């Protein structure tokens, strides 16, 4: 059996009276693409925010590669456990160029990042790797563009590129195609396939077809609870999922 990359045990998060997540147990194996779907308000984004440490769980535990990371500060989870995250609402450095964006994300792992005496340009290996990542996500010809001037689809790709900066073992993609045109959706699907090599990917999406196409296994959340888990085929035919999610009576 493969190693467990991400595990949650009885993860619960309450906002006052509202229970956003209610005892979620997840086990995601190394190397898989796990789809995480559910209707609005199912708790998908809350789950992401808990994993990266932006929110603290009310009860329950989060384990990444078998180690308890519950309550660690976000930067520690991200850097020590090599977690990458691409947010639903693109979070980039708008005034910097594409290359600088990626450069800065790679730089988080650079040993010479504290150095105040050398020029940033002299870290040529960081720059070379940044160029590689830009090529990988298909932004190779736009490296010199200022990030704010990119199309929304390209900004999503840049968000991926930034998330790949610390060469993550566990990559969380929060609604990668929300607000993206159909043509660009294809492009993003291809990129996700491309970057999934040697990584575990958690793909949180609202669009069920997109997930069915890409994921190895799918977990369905509804009202903060896991209601189904299985292969895309199983999920497609699961009655309960059809009832709550697909709206079939």
């Amino acid at each position: 059996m493969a190693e467990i990359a991400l595990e949650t045990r009885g993860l619960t998060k309450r906002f006052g009276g509202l229970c956003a997540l209610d005892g979620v147990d997840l086990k995601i194996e190394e190397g898989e693409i796990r789809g995480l779907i559910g209707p609005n308000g199912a708790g998908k984004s809350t789950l992401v925010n808990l994993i990266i440490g932006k929110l603290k769980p009310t009860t329950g535990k989060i384990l990444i590669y078998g180690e308890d990371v519950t309550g660690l500060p976000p930067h520690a989870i991200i850097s020590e456990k090599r977690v990458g995250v691409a947010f639903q609402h693109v979070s980039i450095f708008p005034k910097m160029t594409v290359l600088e964006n990626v450069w800065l994300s790679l730089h988080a792992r650079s040993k010479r990042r504290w150095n105040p005496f050398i020029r940033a340009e002299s870290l040529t290996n960081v720059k070379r790797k940044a160029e590689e990542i830009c090529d990988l996500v298909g932004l190779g010809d736009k490296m010199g563009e200022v990030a704010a001037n990119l199309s929304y689809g390209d900004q999503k790709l840049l968000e991926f590129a930034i998330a790949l900066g610390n060469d993550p073992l566990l990559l969380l993609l929060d609604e990668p195609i929300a607000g993206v045109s159909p043509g660009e959706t294809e492009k993003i699907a291809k990129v996700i396939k491309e970057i999934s090599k040697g990584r575990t990917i958690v793909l949180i999406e609202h669009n069920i077809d997109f997930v069915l196409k890409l994921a190895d296994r799918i977990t369905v959340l509804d009202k903060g609870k896991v209601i189904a888990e299985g292969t895309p085929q199983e999920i497609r035919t699961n009655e309960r999922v059809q009832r709550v999610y697909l709206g079939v009576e």
Partner: protein
Amino acid sequence: MISSTYTKIAKDRRFIIRTPKLTTVFLMIALPLFLLGMISPKYITSLVTDIVIFSIYAMGYDILLGFTNQFSYGQALYFGLGAYGVLLSVLHMGVNLWTGIIIALTICVFISLLLGSLSVRLTGAYFVIITIIFNLVFYFLALSWVWLTGGDDGLTFTVPPLDFLLIKLSLNDHIVKFCFIFSLFIISFLILERLISSPLGRIFIGIRENEERLTFLGYDVFRYKLIAYVVSALFSGLSGALYAIRLGYASAEFFSLSLSALPIVYTLVGGMGTLIGPVIGTIIILPFTYFVGALWKHYFIIVGALIILLLKFNPKGVIGYIMKYR
């Protein structure tokens, strides 16, 4: 901010801040300033000396406000510490000038590490308020500990000669004093320019652009903000020390909030996040306060109106205008 101005260049080189250009612009400003200081009558030289001292103050402040987006209203704390650090160590310990300056800067680093680790975690208005509070605490201490600081009347001291390559330069001559302070101004710029174009400086710019994203890339943002705070305090301290040397005097007023306001004004007027913007801001505002301030004591009303007008039409400050029409 300089970034959009450099967009065109960035397309070729793919990096925002082209520091060689920054140095060129700086030399274009510094050289005339130096000549002016050298050939002018004494009172103009003194004015230029002040411009240079406060430029160091403002450049250091720019690291905080312009590069890491931390709005401190308490930099006079370090200005005062720098001034008293050098004055008291010369007065009571009889050290030479270099040692005095180093003692002053060491004090600034220690205090800023302590106060920074308490305050830097706060953001927005909370950070502004806590820096004001720290500043006021030191101001009132300086006012009440008359035995140490001389309070409102302040203390005077004889500036010891400067040990420089085996010769002792007397700083009684105002031109020598000017050259000494000007050389520290150049060194300060070179250090700060190097800092902002270094790997560490890139992280500072990242904090300004999107602090949250940096956290979720694995950066411990707190540490970098603390470094920026300490660097800023260091240069505030240096300018305070130089101001005490220039006047041969320091008083509790060096800790006052109106001195905390100065680097903010200079940085905003000149253009923050550019390093040379604060220098330009100082060159514009400081002479204005000298000449108008001599005529009318409520001159800061005019300064305030000017700042509002200037920033209304271009929030990037004066440097925004220069870059726009290049």
